């Protein structure tokens, strides 16, 4: 019994253990670091965009009071209700009136820096409410791009004292620009808006959804419920899985070579864009749909079959309604991807300068991500802010869609 075990915790052992523990701590810290880095980059990206973008929702405006009783512009509610009202106001010299009023208020130098389209704002205000022609009204009119740059501290040095003086007198200020959400593309950052691109995005998404959702759901139903196990089914499965992995720009090449060859007059139409994106989104919906259908327990199918339902009735009356929340979640995620997609749309010509919102599925349009891409090419400081503001709008939409998907998942998630 004199056998003695050697002490386990020798000095060497202690040293080795210490080393192993510190290596453990290093490893853990490394993992934490990786996560912190990713989250930091995300936060940095969002904060940069937000800080830049807040300026984009504002514009530099000159406050100009116009006394319409002195201007001699004649118009009544009837003539203004007609279609050429703005042109008729232009013919009556409204631009000069606005210019003169600006000169009275901020001097010749300041008036020269009034945005060239500022009078349209006044014209639209008159059309909307003709009674202002009988009184003095104060307008916030967009300043020129140069003055706007000078006000924010860069741009032409010559204009900076002017901007400073006007700001001190209270004539020049940055105001929230509600028009940013209602106007379309323009050449001047003071005049641009995103409504045209947003409307194009909405129209394109409608086409994408209308094509990709039914086709994707039906294909998923076929593959999961009816498809015989044979060579053809394998080919279909492989091609769907491959399509999900094809780079998006390849779909753009397909759209360019096939859709624009079939419909040569529809360059940059939401119809073609939607069709191209639908082909890209369809495999995503099929894969999500198959998973959702697979999750419906077989007992439900057996029960329905047992009371005499046909295979088609089983699927359309029982399986599909139960799988629908899962399919919808997948669809929303696929649509969110399509909403942010740019490259395939560049291929099919949705990169033109479109200054009016599209009025149908076949009129030229641009979409939000492409608008961001186009503005990002402009070197103007004003456009940098506008681009970030458009990015905020796009991200808000994506956040909404993802939030909806998460809500649907939580609301309808079932465990059988």
């Amino acid at each position: 019994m004199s056998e003695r075990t050697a002490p386990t915790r020798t000095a060497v052992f202690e040293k080795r253990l210490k080393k192993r523990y510190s290596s453990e701590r290093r490893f853990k810290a490394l993992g934490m670091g990786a996560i912190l880095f990713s989250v930091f980059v995300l936060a940095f990206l969002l904060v940069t965009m937000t800080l830049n973008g807040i300026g984009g929702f504002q514009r530099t405006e000159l406050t100009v009071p116009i006394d319409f009783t002195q201007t001699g512009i004649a118009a009544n509610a009837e003539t203004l209700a007609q279609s050429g009202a703005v042109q008729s106001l232009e013919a009556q010299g409204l631009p000069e009136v606005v210019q003169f009023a600006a000169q009275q208020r901020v001097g010749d130098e300041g008036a020269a820096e009034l945005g060239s389209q500022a009078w349209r704002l006044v014209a639209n205000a008159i059309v909307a409410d003709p009674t202002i022609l009988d009184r003095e009204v104060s307008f916030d009119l967009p300043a020129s791009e140069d003055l706007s740059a000078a006000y924010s501290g860069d741009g032409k040095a010559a204009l900076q004292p002017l901007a400073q003086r006007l700001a001190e007198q209270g004539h020049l200020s940055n105001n929230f620009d509600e028009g940013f959400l209602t106007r379309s593309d323009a050449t001047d950052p003071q005049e641009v808006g995103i409504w045209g691109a947003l409307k194009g995005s909405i129209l394109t998404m409608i086409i994408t959804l209308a094509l990709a959702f039914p086709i994707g759901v039906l294909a998923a139903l076929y593959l999961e419920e009816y498809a015989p196990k044979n060579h053809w089914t394998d080919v279909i499965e492989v091609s769907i899985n491959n399509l999900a992995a094809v780079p998006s720009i390849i779909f753009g090449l397909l759209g360019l070579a096939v859709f624009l060859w079939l419909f040569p007059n529809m360059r940059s139409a939401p119809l073609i864009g939607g069709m191209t994106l639908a082909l890209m989104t369809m495999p995503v919906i099929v894969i999500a749909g198959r998973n959702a259908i697979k999750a419906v327990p077989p007992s439900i199918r057996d029960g329905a079959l047992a009371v005499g339902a046909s295979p088609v009735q089983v699927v359309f009356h029982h399986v599909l309604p139960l799988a629908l929340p899962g399919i919808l979640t997948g669809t929303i995620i696929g649509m969110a991807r399509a909403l942010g997609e740019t490259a395939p749309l560049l291929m099919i010509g949705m990169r033109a300068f479109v200054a009016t919102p599209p009025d149908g599925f076949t009129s030229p349009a641009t979409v939000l991500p492409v608008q961001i891409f186009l503005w990002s090419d402009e070197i103007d400081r004003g456009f940098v802010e506008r681009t970030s503001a458009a990015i905020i709008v796009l991200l808000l939409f994506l956040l909404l869609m993802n939030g909806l998907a998460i809500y649907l998942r939580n609301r309808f998630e079932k465990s059988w």
Partner: protein
Amino acid sequence: MSPAILLLLALGLGLAGWLAARARAWGFKRASGGTRLAALPTYHAWYVALWIVVPVLLFIIVWSAIAPQLIVNSVLASPIAADLPEFGMQRQQILSEARAAASGSTTALFNPASRDFVEPFREAISRTNWIGIASTLAIALLGGIWSFLRLKPDFTARTRVERAVMVVLLLASLIAILTTLGILASLVFETVRFFGMVDPWSFLTGTHWGPDPMANPDNPDPTRYGAIPLFWGTIFIGAIIAMIVAIPLGLMSAIYLTQYANPKLRAWVKPALEVLAGVPTVVYGYFAALTVAPAIRDIALSLGAANPSTESALAAGLVMGVMIIPFVSSMADDSIAAVPQAMRDGSLAMGATNSETIRRVLIPAALPGIVAGVMLAISRAIGETMIVVMAASTAANLSANPLDRMTTVTVQIVKMLTGEGSFDHPATLSAFALGFVLFMVTLGLNFVALRVVKRFREAYE
């Protein structure tokens, strides 16, 4: 006549047929005193509606393809067409202008000769429209009456409708094959045209890339179409720089989240990483071009690099790596989670620390899944477009310096196809050849990745 109106007409007729057939089926039921029909009245209704709508839809598709040609032919058959200039641009222009005026989409006529053709066009269009409507009605009536007459109390409408449903389901799943074929056909067709002008060998092995869209298209200079610098730029940005960022960060994030993090942290961080994957690539591109690239240039300058570029490969690669992180981490997450708990417990019971268990047991066991994930990530990175279009350069450069300007396959595809070049020019067609290479490489990577998972993933029973 726009197809939309014919479509509405078809749907309206279908609805009418649906209602009529259902009423008739109820009639059978009442007449026979409540005995069971072979199918529910709704199925009779759907049967008739299908027989009306499907043939009409097929007709509309064919008709909208041939109607424009019919209109032109009937105009050309009229006597005044003899005055038209011979085949060529002018003839086309006159016809298309007159046609646009006749259909009311424009009012401006630039070519006086087209004025004479407006009236014939208008007549031809209205005649064709009437033929279209009349044929739609005739087909709908024929289909409707034929199917309506077949309705009987013992008619098995349901099996027939269900057969039609199965055909629709099959057709929907065939769209995937059709798309794949469409991609292949469009890429191969244009690529073959390109290789008719430029020798494939000099395209795949040449080291100078500088297509000139303004050069004479009939006699391209094959030495300007060497794609090696593009392939190198793509690999350097997408498969080297981006992966140096994405693999360690993605892997470590996945390890931390699955092995160390408490559920609360996990519930917050995992969605955050998913957001990172959901940010549109155009936003990453803007971020790279606006914030990252200038920062990298400034850092490089302060470190003493000689004229670093604002369009460096490093900026595009770094941002692309960040974009890929969630992709790698979710694949690694899945395959680590698939390793059975018993293996982990066994290692811990032997006295291994957590990190030793992870490095020596979990990672080797999960390796096939991780490798497959990395391959999928690479295939995604080399197909990524907007980040490189906005942040990388368009100058093809065969260099290993990450601060150099470099370009990628996708950048060149965008550049070639958004320029002014015509569709018959080798510079434009080269985009399709590049697209073909990209398609094959990404498919190959995906294929191998799936095989790796299938062949090497351990099956734990």
